[in-house]
């Protein structure tokens, strides 16, 4: 078991974003969280990764995790390679090459496009050699080539780990093994 959630819920003020969710993820699983905007997909991913506290319930997960969030910020004055070094990557260039970003290795991220940032976040997540990869809208800002890269990396990762991703992109559901609709 790579990840297990039991009766998890998150409340903001009076409003429950999600409540009483229980599920578990095994090696080889790609779980797609779907649902309309505001259904709590991103919030659930942040709770799963521990960046947000749960209001109720508990989670068990194998550390380290790899997390690439849509609204995860990067340091504008650091380059892609420096980000990976900060994250302890042994071979930053290899990680950058895996997401086709080696050409921009020394460029500071304030000069990156949205798609390049998304790729770098994916490289940072993978650099942790995680058992569980958590991705928030991983292909939302990507072109066709970028989507293919994500698909290949997910396929490779699930051989020894698991993936939980939030998406509204129909193509992403093609490589999901399970789907959890949040409404």
């Amino acid at each position, binding site marked *: 078991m790579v990840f297990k959630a039991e009766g998890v819920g998150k409340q903001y003020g009076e409003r429950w974003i999600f409540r009483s969710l229980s599920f578990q993820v095994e090696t080889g699983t790609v779980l797609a969280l779907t649902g309309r905007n505001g259904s709590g997909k991103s919030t659930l991913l942040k709770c799963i*990764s*521990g*960046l947000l*506290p*749960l209001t109720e319930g508990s989670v068990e997960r194998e550390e*380290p*995790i790899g*997390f690439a*969030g849509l*609204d*995860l*910020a*990067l*340091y*504008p*004055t*650091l380059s892609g390679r*420096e980000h990976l*070094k*900060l*994250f*302890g*990557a*042994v071979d930053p260039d290899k990680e950058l090459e895996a997401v086709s970003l080696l050409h921009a290795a020394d460029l*500071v991220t304030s000069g990156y496009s949205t798609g390049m940032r998304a790729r770098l976040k994916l490289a*940072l997540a993978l*650099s*942790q*050699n995680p058992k569980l990869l958590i991705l928030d809208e991983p292909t939302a800002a990507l072109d066709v080539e970028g989507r293919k890269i994500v698909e290949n990396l997910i396929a490779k990762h699930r051989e020894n780990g698991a993936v939980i991703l939030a998406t509204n992109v129909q193509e992403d559901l093609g490589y999901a093994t399970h789907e959890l609709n949040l409404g």
Partner: protein
Amino acid sequence: MPRTNSIWAETQAIFQKEITSELRNSTGFWSAALFALTTVSAIGFASAREKPGPELAAGILTAVLLFSGVSSLPRSLLVEDEQGTLELLRLRFEPESIYYGKLLFVTAMQFINSFVLCMLYIAFAGLSVVHPGILALGLVAESVAISGAVVLCGAVVMGATSRWLLVGVLSMPFLLPQSAACIGVLRYGFGAGFSETAWINIGSLFGFGLLGIAIGPPLARALWKRP
């Protein structure tokens, strides 16, 4: 791929990141430098005809050091909050490492700031330094103490709406006794007071610094640990 798991290795990584960021966008450094230069120039002009005595000189220098520190040092922590990069750090580093990395960087910045400010002040005000060793040690102790207070309070106010104001207000109870101790040391450095008092004050300043080192990590764990 292995992770560098020791707190020291992680602290070094954060420190290195702070240095690189500061060298590329040295807003904090330049705001402190501008404040320092303006203040010591003003004091220099004001006291052109009459040199301040050791007591007054120590008081003025302490106030300048304190305010330049409080105005520039919280930036290191609060900017993480504002640009949203704290989450990135929390994903990779232990809370203690984030705290110690920031503290190390802020202490180094404050020491450079204090040293430069003190030299400028001595030159502009035409002061004589009677005990340079004690003065230098006092500046080190003062840097450790101010940094400890500011980083501790910075960690507490992260996420608050008026964080820039709050950090100053919250650090005042720490900084006021520190100011008294700092004045005691600097006064002796400029030739007034007793060596015993100066040593006690140096000890007090280091004590305040140790308080930040001791209280900070459990506080950081409580605030930033991923549940």
